């Protein structure tokens, strides 16, 4: 499939220059779903932007979501009439926006949608992720019908975890991109 049909869904505050999503964007030409406001994410706004980007692809897209991007993918799947325009999703380190302190900051993101996703997906969770307890991530994977992968102790599976361009993750993506 064309690289322009792989959509990168970063989390809150966007993925920085050393984040694997940014490195994949540069190296492979995947397309970032750019949000209007990264620091104060509004779910409705992010949903509309994702819908717009999915509809502007010329074949079903593969979503590559990190952190809040995973919650966005689930929310979008639960609402959009265009889920057939997504082929699969790689969901990495979902953030638990129902945690009390996050819920206060991002009230419109709760409750997290727990419907089965309309497309196949793989969810990777870390055992020491500060943004989501491991068992919560397992619960999300189960509810979303995602294949669950225990990624060991890897923090929030981001640049701080020292993943660089994360070739191991890219292999997983390539599997999802296959017809």
């Amino acid at each position, binding site marked *: 499939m064309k690289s322009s049909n792989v959509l990168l869904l970063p989390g809150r505050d966007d993925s920085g220059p050393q984040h694997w999503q940014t490195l994949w964007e540069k190296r492979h030409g995947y397309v970032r779903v750019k949000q209007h406001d990264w620091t*104060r994410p509004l779910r409705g706004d992010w*949903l*509309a932007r994702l819908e717009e980007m999915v509809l502007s692809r010329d074949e079903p897209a593969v979503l590559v979501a990190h952190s809040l991007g995973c919650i966005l993918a689930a929310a*979008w799947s639960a609402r*959009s009439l265009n889920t057939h325009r997504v082929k699969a999703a790689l969901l990495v380190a979902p953030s638990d926006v129902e945690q009390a302190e996050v819920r206060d900051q991002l009230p419109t993101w709760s409750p997290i949608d727990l419907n089965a996703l309309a497309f196949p997906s793989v969810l990777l969770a870390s055992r020491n992720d500060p943004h989501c307890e491991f068992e919560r991530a397992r619960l999300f994977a189960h509810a979303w019908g995602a294949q669950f992968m225990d990624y060991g102790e890897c923090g929030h599976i981001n640049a701080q975890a020292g993943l660089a361009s994360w070739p191991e993750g890219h292999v997983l993506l390539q599997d999802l991109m296959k017809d």
Partner: protein
Amino acid sequence: MAKIFCVANQKGGVGKTTTTVNLAAGLAKVGQRVLMVDLDPQGNATMGSGVDKRKLELTVYDVLLESASVVEARVKSDKCGYDVLGANRELAGAEVELVEVERREQRLKLALTAAAGDYDFILIDCPPSLSMLTLNGLCSAHGVIVPMQCEYFALEGLTDLVNTIKQVHANMNKDLQIIGLLRVMFDPRITLQQQVSDQLKAHFGDKVFNTVIPRNVRLAEAPSYGLPGVVFDPAARGSQGYVEFAQEMVDRIKKM
């Protein structure tokens, strides 16, 4: 019970939001109880009414999703003298979220009905596109106020809007009618504007409001202070035009 009006034009940049907030402020000034509903995710009418869209806990989005009532979500703009049912970018999600909901285009109408006794006028600032949000506005309203600049292409956008209003009238809202065309940003020294204005009068007759809003820099400056021109500089010619227009609206609805 409130009379509900949409301020709409499918052409962007014609002074829709300026008209909404200044008419709201003008109506408040002549003693009317007013609710201004911002249906544009850009939230400019909210900000232009002295309400910070980033600090709103509830907006028209929550009302459309039926997670809040109008009474819960409205805020008072003390500086402007009217209530605001505000919007921010969250509202864009309603286009996705309501797509499978039955009678989705009637959501705003149902919500406003419950609060209509609190007001004389409810003004709705619609986005420029024909979206589900605009349809909600048109389905709620008794009439449409169409601000327009007297320029060559103005009539083209108007044809689209008139067709939309006819369709909504036929299929969704029998009350809906064009209340009138409001000539805005008018400069009588420009011959073309005078000619287009004359054409409008000849073609639409008494559907063209008598009031004309002159081009006025104070109206353009006011939004950067988060206020309608009518509040920011009441003595400006444009502000006086909107107060005059408010009185014309009060007189006109007596005949409705």
